[in-house]
Structures are given as C-alpha cells and as structure tokens.
C-alpha cells in the first residue's frame, strides 16, 4: 500500500469511477428522503426497492460496505488515499450509502481499538455484511451530561453478568439486533473507574423498549429497559471497570459527527429560501433585519467550513486537533440551531405549519424543532465549553 504511486491512484480513480457508473442504480444517486430510503441491515430491516437491494448487494460483493476496514473482517482493505478517492467519487455522482450503521461509525472503531482477536472476528464481519443492526446505550434518565454518573448495573454472576437498569436516547433500539452499553460494574470505585463496556443481544430475556416522542414528533429514540438480563462474560469489551476509556474515545468521535465535520453540504443557501419567501426590491430583501441575520449566518457557515478545512489541513501536518472536537461540536450545533430558527422565520407563516398539505414547509418546521436537541445530545454546549476552557485553555478548576 505504502508504495502506491500517483499513477496507481489515478488508475484506481478511473477504475472506481467506471465501476460506480456501472453498478450504482440511478435511483440510488438521489439524496435519501425518508426513513425507508435508508437500509440499516439486521433482522428488522427490509429493502424498500429492488434498486436498494441491488446496490447493497453489489457493494457487499465488492467489499465496499466498509471499504477501509481490513479484508479479514469483510472490509475492502483500501488505503486512506484510495478510500478518499472512493468517497469523492461517490459524492460526485451522489451515491447513497449502501448501509447506514452505528456499527460502522461508532462500535467498529471501538472494537478495532479495544476488543480482543476473538471479539473482532465475532462482531466485525457481521457489521460489514449488514447482518447486525447495532444501537448505542450510553445515556440514562438521571445521567445526561454527567454520562459517568450512570447507574445501570452489571453484577458478576460467575459465568455471566446480570444487567439491570435503563438507558435513554437509544436510537432505533426498537429495531436493533444488538446494543453496545456502558454499565456500572463497580459501585465502590470513583464514578469514572467502575464502568465497563458491554455488548448485549436485544433478543435476550428482560430487554424491552419504549419509543420516545419529541417536540418535533416521532423520533428514532427509545428508552431501553434491562430487567435482570443475563449477558455472557465474553461480551465484555476491553478491561473490566475501564469502560470509560472506550466511552471517551467514542464521544470524541461522535462530537465530530454531530458538529457536522466531514459531512457534505447539500443545503440550499438560506438567502435563496429567503428570496423565495420574502418580499424584495431590486433583488435586495426588504426586511433589512432578517437580511442581516441571514448574512451573519451565511458568513459564519462559510468561515466554519474554512475552519474545518484548516484544522484538517493542520492535522495532516501532525498538529494534534483532538481537543478541538469540542469546539466543532459546540459551534457546529449552535450554528445549526440558529440556522434552522432563521429559516423558520424567513418562511413567514409557512415556517409555522405543523400539519398541512405543504409537506416541504412541515418538514422545515419539524427539522427546526428537532434541531433543538443538537446542542444537548452528544454532550451539551455547556459541557463542550467546559472542555474547551479546561483542556484547551487550561483554565483552573
């Protein structure tokens, strides 16, 4: 891999381009619009179209469900450069992801880092093949920002753990096959030192779920209850009582995702929405106050994009950008909430429609309401500001 030349990469690009053109169905080159447009794998997911099934199957055969994982786990074994090229070419023609999966984006990296050989062979191939739909069990009702205050307990019963407690904000827990969980295994230790990372089969006796309705309406979130659930000991990942290390690793990862880092931007510009919905004169929006707010948001969007690029570029030169994930999470989500509120404002009374034949307008309003969670989930803005002030600015405690 390391000896791959520029011309090799050029060839890889043209070959990839050709293959995608040939194998990605036209209908799979449009942005997903509803839940059914996403394929999540596992026992509760079905293909919503032949094209969706074909696209998934082709990519699976090509080992490109997770192109950059090792081939022994069913990955494509691509180098970072090759993977980059593949991503670029997929974005260029608008290919959908063949599989949506927290297994790929969240559990996988943790297993690579912390699981033993047997565990990797047991769980990773089922992720790359789409056999297991994973969900995440971190938060608890009384431990929101204070994640480490979790109380779900796993008692050592010799050959298994007995798990009791409940989790909240578990996305798609009602559909998922397995859950990766933080549980308390030592109640005597200080709170960060008694936590372990456990994988639990959702089919186990004693597991139940309840969907959570949000201010925006239905949501993928559930509460998940564990009522004396037996979990085999080999499902423990990493060291007993050292699960917090894995949690921190994953949180940094998650923050970057929620902050929008690395996501392609296909949004319509706010000012375009405004021009469609608000009066203007000689091409200038008449409402000068909202016009200023739009300019401010768009300026900050532009500068935030540049900042993602700058820090990515700096990271390539070896500058450690790890601590900046809190900045990305904080700024990206605050900006997103402000943008959604502004879009609701500039669409006038359309920006208030909750139930109406005007589906686009309703979608804007519900997205706006949903966005209110962005500055809370994955660590509140307040938690991120605290991390910035302590870990980056080194302000005293």
């Amino acid at each position, binding site marked *: 891999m390391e000896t791959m030349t520029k011309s090799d990469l050029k060839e890889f690009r043209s070959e990839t381009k050709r293959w995608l053109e040939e194998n990605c169905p036209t209908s799979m080159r449009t942005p997903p619009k509803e839940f059914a447009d996403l394929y999540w794998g596992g026992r509760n997911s079905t293909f919503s179209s032949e094209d969706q099934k074909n696209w998934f199957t082709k990519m699976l055969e090509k080992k490109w469900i997770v192109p950059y994982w090792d081939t022994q786990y069913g990955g494509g074994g691509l180098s970072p450069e090759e993977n980059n090229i593949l991503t670029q070419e997929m974005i260029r023609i608008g290919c959908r992801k063949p599989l949506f999966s927290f297994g790929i984006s969240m559990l996988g990296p943790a297993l690579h880092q912390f699981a033993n050989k047997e565990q990797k062979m047991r769980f990773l191939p089922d992720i790359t093949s789409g056999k297991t739909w994973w969900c995440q069990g971190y*938060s608890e*009702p*009384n*431990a*929101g*920002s*204070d994640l480490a*205050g979790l109380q779900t307990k796993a008692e050592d019963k010799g050959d298994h753990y007995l798990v009791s407690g409940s989790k*909240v*904000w578990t996305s798609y827990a009602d559909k998922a096959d397995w859950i990766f969980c933080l549980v308390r295994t030592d109640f005597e230790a200080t709170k960060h030192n008694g936590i372990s990372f456990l994988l639990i089969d959702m089919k186990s006796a004693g597991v139940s779920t309840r969907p*959570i*309705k*949000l*201010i*925006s309406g239905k949501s993928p979130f559930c509460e998940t209850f564990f009522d004396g659930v037996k979990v085999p000991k080999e499902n423990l990942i990493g060291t007993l009582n050292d699960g917090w290390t894995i949690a921190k690793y994953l949180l940094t990862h998650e923050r970057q995702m929620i902050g929008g880092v690395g996501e392609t931007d296909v949004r319509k510009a706010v000012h375009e929405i405004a021009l469609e*919905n*608000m*009066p203007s004169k000689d091409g200038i929006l008449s*409402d*000068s*106050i*909202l016009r200023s707010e739009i300019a401010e948001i768009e300026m900050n969007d532009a500068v935030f994009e540049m900042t993602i690029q700058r820090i990515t570029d700096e990271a390539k030169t070896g500058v450690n950008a790890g601590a900046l994930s809190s900045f990305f999470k904080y700024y990206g989500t605050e900006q997103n909430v402000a943008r959604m509120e502004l879009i*609701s*404002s500039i*669409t*006038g*009374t*359309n*920006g*208030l*429609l*909750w*139930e*109406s034949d*005007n589906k686009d307008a309703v979608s804007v*309003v519900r997205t706006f*309401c949903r966005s*209110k*969670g962005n*500055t*809370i*989930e994955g660590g*509140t*803005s*307040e938690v991120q*500001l605290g991390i910035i002030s302590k870990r980056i600015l080194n302000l005293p405690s």
Partner: protein
Amino acid sequence: MALIITEEQKLLRDSATEFLAMNAPIEQFRELRDDNYRAFDEGLWTKLVEMGWTALTIPEEFDGLEFGYTGLGQVLEEMGKNLTKAPLFSSIVLGATTLTESSNQELKAAWLTHLMDGTKRFAFALDEQTYFDPTSIATTAKKANNQYTLSGKKTMIIDGASADAFVVVAKTEDNEINLFLVEAKTAGISISTDVLLDAGTYASVTFDQVKVSEANRISTAGQGSNLLNQILNTACICLSAEMLGMVSEVFDQTIAYLKEREQFGKRIGTYQALQHRAAIMFSEIELCKSVVIKGLQAIDEKSEDLDQLASLAKAKLGKTIKLVTNEAMQMHGGIGVTDDVNIGFYFKRARVLQRLFGDYSYHLDRFARLNKY
C-alpha cells in the same frame, strides 16, 4: 399614571389564577392537542363567559363591565401561563374591539350582547400572505346599489373555523382600507384549516363574490386604516400580555428545574454560567413586565403614544420570549426536547405568537419609522 395594577385588577387576576388552575391547567392543552388538535373546550368557554371575561372591555352602555384592557390583560397573562385555549383573543380582543372602536351603532347593538354572552363569536380576517403586511391588501370590496361584493383569500385566521362571523379587511374601489362584518354562513365563503406549531388550528377563508350589505361596513369612510391600526395596536399589546404570562411561567419552571436537577453530583443551579444566564433572563423579564402594563394602560387611556408602545411591547416580548424559551429548552437538557414534558409547548406556542401581528423585525422597523429614522 402609576405603573401598577389597581386593587380591582389584582382581584380579577387572582380570581383568574384560581379559576384556570381548576378549569384549564396546562394538562388541558395536551388533552385538546391529543384529541386531534381540538380548538378549545366548549364547557370552558361557557365558564369564561360566566366569569365575565368576555365583557371586560365592553362599554357599560352595551351592558359590558367597562373594566378596560388593563384588566383583560391580567386575565390574558394568566391564560398565557396555562396556555389556555379559548376564543377570547379572537372574538373579544380582535372582534369586540373592532365594534367598540367603530362608530357603527347598529352593528354594536346587534352583536355586542351576543359576543359578550358567548353565543356568537367573531374571527378576524386580515392576512393574505405568509408574512405580515397590513398595508398590502388584495381583497376587494366593490360597491353596487346598497351592497358590497367581497373577493379575495384570507389566511391565518385565529379560531376562524368555528366563528359565526368574520371581520374582513378589504380595499374598496377608492383604494381605501375598509372593514366589513361577514357572517360565516354567507354564500361564497369556503374554509380550510391548517394546524400550526402551537397545535392551534388556523383557517384560510376564500371569499368568492360574497355579498355584504352596506350596513355591515364597520368602518366609516376614510377611517378604515385608523380603525385597523387601533385594532392592531390592541392586538399587539394583548398578545404581549399573553406572552408575558408564558415567559414568566417558563422562567419559573426553569428556575425550579435548576434547583432540583442534579448533574456531576451538584444541582445544576449551582453552576455559575447558568446562574448568570438566569439572572440575565430575570432582567429582561423585569423590562417586559413594565412595557406590558404601560401598553395596557395606554389602550385604556387612549394614549397618543399607543402606536409606539404597541411596537415596543410586541418587539420586546417577542425577543424575550425567544430568549427565555430557548434557554429553558437548553437548561432542561434532553428531557426538554421530549413531548413528555410541557416546556416544549411553550417553546412552540411562543414561535407562533412571535410571528402573529408582526415579528420582532417588523416592529423594530415600525418603531424606528414612528420615531422618524
């Protein structure tokens, strides 16, 4: 005039607090929403009438209580706290005010009693676009013989689906704004509804060659714009009173949550960053209280500053309710964005009230224009 409420107004307010706690707490809002967005409870409406709330602003000569808008404002504030759903704002603040402010004695005599006793209800048909602009009216009223023919489409009509009659803002052929009273059963009227963010049902009404007798013209010649302006000022200030109730309630609930919720082993109200943000909200709310009472008194005193005070109140409350509901959502954390708790109801209702009768930027601009800059 002292910026405080009188003893009588305070008694009215206390009775409203007690009444609403018994008859229309926030749980009723949830029940109505879950009952396919039901507009309001008819039983509650009957009781409100019995409480005399529909008569507060009606002159004594029409058997009203002539208690004034400052009194009504106390009731609206309490209703805001409970998100009480009732056609009081649509039928009384908008509807009855239109009549009491007009010089059409016949219409007053014919309708005010029924508005007061709740057997008839008005709805106010002004908006035609998705943004608020009361100067841009496309609905026309053409006169022939002793009759007007109204044509046009109105949207965002509060409680429009269940109204007995509409106050319709239209342009006559002299390009003047005029207001007409049009009964809902008149031929040529068709009604559709949308549900908005606040779980409220708002009507759109099409007037297709609707015939209205000249006697139903509410405004006198050349005075339509002034009458409309008076109603809008009243609406802005009364909405501000309702918003003040909401803001106060949301703030109180949030402070209570800060005192109770624990994170990282401490109550979150001990965190200085949240304390300062709470104190900033407190300060803004103190300002809101003042502008609301000043505005309400200004209606009653027929103050020359009413235009300015109406925009001041609507802008200040609009901005503050945005701040406070956003902070409340954030400070409630994950639970706040679920439908299980009520705080989101206030957040969503606030967004609607911010927009109705002109948003922050509309009234900031109007305030600047009134001050000639």
